[in-house]
């Protein structure tokens, strides 16, 4: 009955091909306009999962209590010198804060005045003691600048030290080197302030200093600003920054917003790149495999029309693409042509002994039902995720399922119409190598069945190590700035994202919870708000008193009278040439300290050059030496004289990040082990949740999402297998044949899991789509082979028929386009590409070699087959 319907449709189309093609063209144009004008990608990757779980509710509660932490952009300023990093960070924070239209929250803990003034109390007792010793080291310099704030004060001190018959104070070499470097920068046109604090604190400049500005976009009538606008504005602000220190630090963006934004961009770019590659690969395969220009045009035409209509349908059906569903547009390039290839090649074959109209109708009659069946089974593979909680893949399913049906309709319409209008394609002459292989392999069908079984067992053995990667971050482009910076922040312990947070109702609750959590094996640290107040403050005050005593000579000064600028110019020039002379004298004496003699030589060289510069350059250098030192002196004077403080003394912004206005206290739990491995993450989350069930944080959210994805995965496979088996039984009217068709698919699945182990590409949120697809797509080839197996009157006819070639070619096109996905930067898309490529390769062999052998050995229809012996 369906056949009759198909033939009627074909006659309808071939009777008025021009009208039909015109209508198709109009529909395609309208679809194209609709699809392009309405194109958008859902930027909230959190919406890929159904939102009604307990962990999601806890997460939402957390975000309501501490809205500061949600949807942040981290502006990460880092560099070798703390002073440079701070200067840039401070200026940037000011500029961002001023843009209240775009930003609601701008907060940089490193720039907080209170925290900075009390910075020394946050050091450990030992570190503070060392720091005070370093300050003792720097005392002469500090005092010299305080006494005479100009190069003269500083350089006179150096003259005295160099001229004395004492060894130079420790640390002098470092200061000489610092000044030499600074003069060098000034002379090469990049003057910048001297980073005194790094020198004072004896910071190891091999370790980068980080300052993070947390930024939240403003809400516009309750709607968040688009990520692109937030990121664009921050980037503009950064590039508008004009500071000499800017070149000495790196400013990068990370955090949720740039990560999400980057994921969408990388998904878009990946889809575009893979799409372009796929289109070219497809053309190559068709040229190589078909050799007829008309067949190629027909196939390409059907693919493009189908693609455009599918894009329009997708927008209509689900509204927005997500970062996974976008890839169907690429997949379609490979899948959409399959039906067209089968029809075209069969038509080409039928032309051998039939007229044009007859050949077209015979093709439709013989192939139409199989094509439709394939469309349905493929659609089932894609639609398998629709009933699950995993919205991201469900949407891909709706788009792809519909896309497959569209492809069938387009193929059965455009191809007959096209061939009615054009001259007949040339007949295929050569037999493909694959046909010979088929012939050869049929003789060894028992061996093939045995080998197939062996491969299945081996794959099963390897795939027992397959695992699921729970991290939502692993889908993103691992080399994007947002990702590399994010990982760096983790590695450097600047921001730890793998903690679990718990909102305690009161301080007592927080303290009790902490005590209970600390008994857990997997927990290394639990922080409650009170813990942010430095300990041992009294002892630190005593240590700081040493600094106050030693630096009294710095901060209790008799003022030097102000000088006229002409005077200071003269004194500065004198100081420069005097120091050069002292250095020269010193250099003549032998010293065993090579670090010192090198520094002396370097400073001498630079000073002699500086002496010949104009007043402006010299003044600039003087300012760059003295001004930051005075800033540091002002800070130091405050920092060594601070009083002890309690939590209530913290500034409100800081306090509210820990204790919400409602009094809720933030408890942060840090794992003891690396919790990237799922088992560690799970036992950490389980243990913490056994104490506090309403805890949240990345580990819990990722496990929650992973759970949903995994159960969706299981559901989808069951749905796909059961429905496809049902369709197969109905269509093939043989349970044994239906099961035989499923065997290569099951083995392919095992091979795919084994591949995932071998190339260390774990299953993840994105590539779980591959398994239902193996069933949905793989079954197509099985159907074609079985149908032809039964139709063929003798073996030679089967092998010489267009079927093996069509199966081979259509799998190759699918393979080519799916392979194109593995050029993606988006790791989710990339892993889908790689796994599907491996799966389809396995499928190709299993369908063309193992399946005929299986049929020959087990199929109830085999009796009718002449044996090859």
């Amino acid at each position, binding site marked *: 009955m369906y056949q009759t319907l198909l033939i009627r449709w074909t006659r309808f189309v071939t009777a008025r091909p021009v009208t039909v093609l015109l209508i198709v063209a109009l529909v395609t144009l309208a679809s194209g306009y609709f699809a392009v004008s309405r194109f958008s990608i859902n930027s909230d990757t959190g919406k890929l999962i159904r939102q009604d779980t307990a962990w999601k509710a806890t997460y939402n509660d957390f975000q309501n209590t501490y809205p500061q932490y949600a949807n942040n952009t981290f502006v990460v300023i880092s560099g070798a010198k703390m002073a440079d990093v701070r200067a840039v960070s401070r200026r940037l924070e000011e500029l961002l804060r001023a843009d209240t239209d775009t930003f609601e929250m701008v907060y940089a803990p490193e720039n907080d005045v209170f925290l900075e003034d009390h910075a020394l109390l946050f050091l450990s007792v030992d570190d503070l003691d060392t720091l*005070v010793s370093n300050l003792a080291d720097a005392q002469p310099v500090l005092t010299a600048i305080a006494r005479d704030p100009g190069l003269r004060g500083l350089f006179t001190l150096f003259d005295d030290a160099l001229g004395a018959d004492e060894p130079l104070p420790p640390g002098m070499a470092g200061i000489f080197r610092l000044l030499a470097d600074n003069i060098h920068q000034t002379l090469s046109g990049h003057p910048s302030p001297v980073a005194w604090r790094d020198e004072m604190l004896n910071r190891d400049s091999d370790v980068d200093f980080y300052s993070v500005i947390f930024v939240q976009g403003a809400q516009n009538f309750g709607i968040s600003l688009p990520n692109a606008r937030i990121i664009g504005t921050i980037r503009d602000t950064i590039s508008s920054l004009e500071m000499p220190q800017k070149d000495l630090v790196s400013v990068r963006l990370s955090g949720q917003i740039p990560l999400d934004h980057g994921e969408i961009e990388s998904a878009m770019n990946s889809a575009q790149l893979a799409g372009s590659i796929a289109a070219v690969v497809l053309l190559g395969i068709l040229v190589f495999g078909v050799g007829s220009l008309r067949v190629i045009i027909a196939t390409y035409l059907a693919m493009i029309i189908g693609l455009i209509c599918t894009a329009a349908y997708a927008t209509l059906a689900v509204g927005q693409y997500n970062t996974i569903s976008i890839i169907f547009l690429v997949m379609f390039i490979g899948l959409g042509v399959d039906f067209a290839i089968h029809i075209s090649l069969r038509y080409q074959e039928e032309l051998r002994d039939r007229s044009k109209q007859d050949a077209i109708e015979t093709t439709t009659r013989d192939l139409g039902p199989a094509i439709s069946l394939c469309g349905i089974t493929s659609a089932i593979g894609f639609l398998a995720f629709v009933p699950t909680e995993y919205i991201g893949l469900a949407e891909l399913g709706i788009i792809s399922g519909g896309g497959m049906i569209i492809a069938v309709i387009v193929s059965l319409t455009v191809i007959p119409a096209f061939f009615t209008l054009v001259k007949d394609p040339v007949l295929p002459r050569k037999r493909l190598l694959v046909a010979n292989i088929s012939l050869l392999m049929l003789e060894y069908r028992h061996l093939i069945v045995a080998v197939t079984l062996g491969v299945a067992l081996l794959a099963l053995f390897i795939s027992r190590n397959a695992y699921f990667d729970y991290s939502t971050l692993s889908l993103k482009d691992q080399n994007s700035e947002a990702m590399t910076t994010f990982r760096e922040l983790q590695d450097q312990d600047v921001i730890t994202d793998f903690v679990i947070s718990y909102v305690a109702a009161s301080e007592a609750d927080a303290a009790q919870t902490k005590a209970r959590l600390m008994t857990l094996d997997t927990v290394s640290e639990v922080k409650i708000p009170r813990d942010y107040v430095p300990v041992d403050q009294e002892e630190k005050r005593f240590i700081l008193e040493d600094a106050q005593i030693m630096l*009294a000579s710095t901060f209790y000064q008799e003022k030097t009278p102000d000088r006229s600028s002409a005077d200071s110019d003269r004194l500065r020039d004198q100081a420069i040439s005097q120091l050069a002379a002292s250095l020269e004298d010193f250099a003549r004496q032998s010293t065993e300290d090579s670090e010192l003699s090198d520094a002396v030589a370097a400073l001498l060289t630079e000073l002699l050059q500086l002496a010949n510069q104009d007043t402006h350059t010299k003044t600039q250098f003087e300012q760059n030496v003295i001004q930051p030192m005075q800033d540091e002196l002002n800070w130091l004077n405050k920092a060594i004289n601070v009083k002890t403080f309690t939590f209530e003394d913290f500034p409100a912004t800081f306090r509210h990040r820990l204790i919400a206005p409602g009094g809720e206290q933030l408890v942060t739990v840090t794992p003891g082990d690396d919790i990237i491995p799922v088992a560690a993450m799970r036992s950490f989350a389980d243990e913490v949740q056994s104490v506090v069930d309403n805890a949240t944080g990345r580990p819990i959210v990722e496990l929650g999402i992973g759970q949903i994805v995994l159960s969706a995965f299981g559901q989808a496979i069951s749905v796909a297998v059961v429905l496809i088996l049902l369709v197969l039984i109905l269509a093939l009217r043989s349970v044994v044949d239906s099961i035989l068709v499923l065997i290569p698919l099951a083995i392919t699945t095992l091979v795919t899991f084994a591949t995932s182990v071998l190339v260390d590409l774990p299953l993840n949120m994105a590539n779980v789509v591959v398994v239902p697809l193996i069933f949905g797509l793989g079954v197509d080839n099985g159907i074609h082979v079985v149908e032809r197996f039964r139709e063929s009157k003798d073996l030679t006819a089967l092998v010489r028929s267009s079927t093996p070639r069509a199966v081979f070619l259509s799998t190759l096109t699918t393979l080519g386009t799916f392979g194109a996905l593995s050029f993606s930067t988006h790791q989710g898309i990339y892993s889908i590409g790689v796994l599907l490529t491996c799966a389809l390769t396995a499928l190709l062999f299993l369908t063309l070699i193992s399946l005929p052998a299986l049929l020959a050995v087990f199929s109830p229809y085999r009796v009718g087959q002449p044996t090859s012996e």
Partner: protein
Amino acid sequence: MSSCSATAIALLLSLNSALANTISPVETFHAGLIDMMKSSNYEQRLELLRPVVKQTFDTSTVARIALGRQWRKLPDIVQQQLTELMAEVIISSYASRFPIYTRQHFEIRSEQAVSDNRAIVRTNLLTGDDTVDLDYQLIESEDQWKIFDVVANGVSDLSLKRATYAETFKASGIEGVIEEIQQTIQANRTRADL
């Protein structure tokens, strides 16, 4: 007049008298230095200066700050030893560095209270062709003001000691510090070229 202003005057007077007490140890020390400079015998110089330094310097404060946090962990006997050594190192430094007396003289320039038990006394050492700024830091304990730091042309002797000994302590512990102080005392003796 109210009792208020009377109290204020009393306070002012007591502050002044406190500052007045800061000058006397400095003057005593200066007098001791002048006496010492008149001798050209190193051993004699040490003998002349030792009682003056012991009287005017708070060498336990010098030792405490120079050693930093480690100080409090040291047993009393070691603290005592370090205090003694600190006195010796100060005495030998002055004895070896100050030249023979050629009418050098000291001038008190100013004094300033830093906190309720600390003060700075600023002086000049005039050597005829040169002037050296010598600023003394004093601390009051048990009603007595004593010197614990001498800042010469802006370079604090105490800071120098802290910078040196903290590093030595890190590298070779308290034994290393004691050894280094002893070496300095020995070096001072060697360099004394009178």
